[in-house]
């Protein structure tokens, strides 16, 4: 079963002469443990795709299913629960809560979901360890470097049993070395945690880490390529 399914999805803003089409006839399935990179010029619909995948916005037409559940059939409470339990977000801006420690930041979504403090702490510790952080967890975000803060944000995004990570230019605010480390971390999530990742990035080298690269233009998917498959074809052609 796919983690996310888009079937003929359309997203428009406004109506009549002021209507703006953000997405047109987008169909895409993300398999468990798959990394999808999304590329395209500014305004091509990349971020809208992420918002729809996370249930933050509704499509104007078409169908979106997350974890096999059609979002259109869920009421607001069920959708919020689905988001909390199955979907994590990482943005260019880190969005960590400055007044909470690293541990507390990662525990936050679990506690909001009703998980007890003891269990939340254990899961947060495990999640932080999986992104390479197991010291100074009682420190505040400002005490960490940019790369470490992004690791905390990723740990928070994947804590618990979340099956889908939506990452919107997660390296945009980082230097190249730190950005590379963050991408390596995202690329390891499928094998370490079984998480699927949709990564929006302008950086070709980061897109090349994905199982599939989706190219978008004017709200449409205009190409889907498999870098590793190309790689194997190039090897075979030698």
């Amino acid at each position: 079963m796919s983690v996310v399914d888009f079937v003929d999805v359309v997203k428009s803003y406004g109506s009549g002469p002021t209507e703006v089409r953000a997405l047109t006839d987008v169909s895409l399935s993300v398999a468990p443990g798959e990394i999808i990179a999304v590329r395209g010029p500014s305004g091509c619909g990349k971020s809208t795709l992420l918002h729809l995948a996370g249930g933050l916005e509704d499509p104007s037409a078409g169908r979106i299913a997350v974890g096999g559940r059609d979002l259109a059939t869920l009421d607001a409470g069920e959708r919020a629960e689905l988001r909390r339990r199955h979907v994590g977000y990482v943005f260019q801006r880190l969005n960590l809560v400055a007044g909470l420690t690293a541990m507390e930041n990662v525990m936050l979504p679990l506690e909001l979901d009703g998980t007890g403090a003891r269990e939340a702490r254990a899961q947060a510790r495990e999640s932080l360890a999986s992104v390479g952080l197991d010291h100074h967890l009682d420190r505040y975000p400002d005490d960490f470097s940019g790369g470490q803060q992004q690791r905390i944000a990723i740990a928070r995004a994947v804590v618990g049993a979340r099956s889908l990570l939506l990452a919107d230019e997660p390296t945009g605010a980082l230097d190249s070395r730190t950005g590379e480390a963050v991408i390596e971390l995202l690329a390891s999530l499928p094998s370490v945690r079984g998480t699927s990742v949709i990564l929006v990035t302008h950086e070709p080298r980061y897109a090349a880490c994905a199982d599939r690269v989706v190219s978008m233009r004017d709200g449409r998917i205009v190409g889907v390529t498999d870098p590793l498959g190309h790689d194997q074809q190039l090897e075979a052609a030698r």
Partner: protein
Amino acid sequence: MAVREGLLVLLTDGPLHGYGLKSSFEHATGGVWPLNVGQVYTTLERLERDGFVEASQADEGQRAWRLTDRGREEVGEWWWAIPGEEPPPRDELVLKILLSLAGDRDHALEVIGHHRDALLGLLAQRRRQAKGRRRADADGLASELVVDVLVLRAEADIRWLDLCEERVTNAGAPGDSTEPVVRHRKRRGDRR
């Protein structure tokens, strides 16, 4: 760059035999520029003819080569000479994209997308090589830098194709030609 300058540079640290020059050249260039011994000797003889190197007496059949003052001067000038790049760029990718613009817009965008996909594949391969080399740590800095430059060049080409796509999209139908260039459907995996 010609091999001749490479050999002159290697001789600035002291005399070397022909085979030693071949090995040193290949090591210094990260293994991406293999030479055969015949090529090395032919080049050395030309450098000797031009007064840039001289050979010592044969030592058990091998002659050691050393720089002359003129050769040292030549190397000194070479370091600071800016490599020439003749505009406009004439590599095959550029030519192919420019020619595709003479046809219809959709075909041009398809060609751009196809080559970008192939370059992403190449980039994946280069990244894998870079990681493998870092792990093995066997070939040294030169080899690592060779992979780095290949990654960066592939990225530069991809960014250029992104720009092409953006400009073609914004410009509407490209080219004034009513005669589309001859084309064939793309085949997945084609490199050309």
